């Protein structure tokens, strides 16, 4: 390309027309249609020269402008009816559309200002998870003694139904090791701890209760879990120490 043209990008034919009106500093109510049409067509041909695709809307507007220009050149009708003459200015429809468009073009600036302002305003980066630690039902005390734990065990045993007596599907022996794994896995999904008695379902077998209890003792000994009781005979909560974070 031998010469360079700085082509501005226009949102559409109205946008381009406004640009031309401003550049020529003309009154929108008295558009010098011949001059503006000429410049409009120049712009379009510049686009075509640069092999830019000219959207059909721009071409439709070009045709409109030419039509208006042609009508402006026609001899004026006899001046007997002044009002009819006023009304029939071929530019009226275009002007009306331009004014309507301009309203929103300006209001777009309002939204842009607000957008810029809000981009500089920050809110607190809250996430649901940030508050879950507040929701512990209990406010447990550390250092639970073995006798309370044993008492809780007795309670569970009393509730337990020995499945062997019911003659249902025989269950394989549970090993302490499996139970330890299961407890740790359950605790992994329960940051807020599990109630001791929730470790047992109502139809638990005696063997399973004992194995669970042994598994708990083993895990406490290994320092992998903590047990809390907020008050005597209160709920005993089991927490994983592996979830421990910098919680103060």
């Amino acid at each position, binding site marked *: 390309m031998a010469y360079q043209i700085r082509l501005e990008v226009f949102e559409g034919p109205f946008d381009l027309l406004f640009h031309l009106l401003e550049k020529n500093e003309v009154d929108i109510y008295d558009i010098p249609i011949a001059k503006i049409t000429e410049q409009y067509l120049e712009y379009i041909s510049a686009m075509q020269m640069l092999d830019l695709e000219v959207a059909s809307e721009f071409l439709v507007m070009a045709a409109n402008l030419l039509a208006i220009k042609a009508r402006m050149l026609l001899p004026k009708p006899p001046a007997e009816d002044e009002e009819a003459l006023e009304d029939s200015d071929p530019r009226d429809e275009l002007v009306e*559309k331009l004014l309507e468009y301009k309203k929103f073009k300006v209001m777009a600036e309002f939204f*842009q200002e607000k*957008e810029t302002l*809000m981009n500089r305003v*920050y809110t607190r980066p809250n996430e649901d998870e940030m508050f879950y630690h507040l929701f512990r039902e209990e406010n447990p005390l550390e250092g639970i003694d073995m006798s309370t734990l044993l008492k809780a065990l007795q309670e569970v045993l009393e509730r337990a139904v020995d499945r062997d007596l019911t003659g249902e599907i025989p269950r394989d022996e549970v090993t302490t090791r499996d139970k330890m794994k299961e407890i740790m896995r359950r605790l992994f999904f329960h940051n807020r701890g599990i109630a001791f008695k929730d470790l047992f379902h109502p139809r638990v077998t005696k063997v399973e209760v004992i194995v669970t209890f042994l598994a708990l003792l083993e895990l406490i000994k290994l320092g992998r879990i903590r047990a809390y009781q907020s008050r005597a005979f209160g709920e005993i909560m089991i927490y994983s120490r592996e979830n421990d974070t910098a919680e103060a």
Partner: protein
Amino acid sequence: MGLMFPRETKAIIECLLFVSKEPLTLKVMSQVLEMPENEVKVLADELMSEYNNDRRGININLIANGYQMCTRPEMACHIEKLYKPQGTHGLSKAALETLAIVAYKQPITRAEIEAIRGVKVDSAIGTLVEKNLIREVGRKEGPGRPMLFGTTSSFLRYFGLQDLSQLPDPDEFTRRHGGSQEDNPGEETINGEEGEQDGF
């Protein structure tokens, strides 16, 4: 609870605003506080003016019919030193113009928007719907029953508006801003306190 202990209740409101992700409506606060909305409003408004009249780092703004704690706009440069700016690119001119038309003319069809802008608006509408700033609000009676678009509550939040009635009067705004580029000086407020809209 309630007006008997206004100070403690205001502390609770402060705390709720602090932990909330979105603007908190009076309705939600009155449920949490188990207090009538009008009493909550008195205290929330008091808290808001305490915050906003004091040139603090945090403001409370009325956005999308709710109260929200936000940083004061002038603080942005400091926050951005702490966090890398997330590269918030604003909306394109086409999207802003389309949005302005939807905001003022809602409910409106695609064809009606195109008639005003003089160009196709498919991609602008796509962007705005995707960003949840506008949405389909119904169908227009008549041939083809075209979709009608309106703005969302995210739209209010995105632009920090309290509700649609806060949109400036176009003629007024045009008179002040149109053509001539005189800025309105003074401090930026989003909105809130004395109900005056400096920013417009």
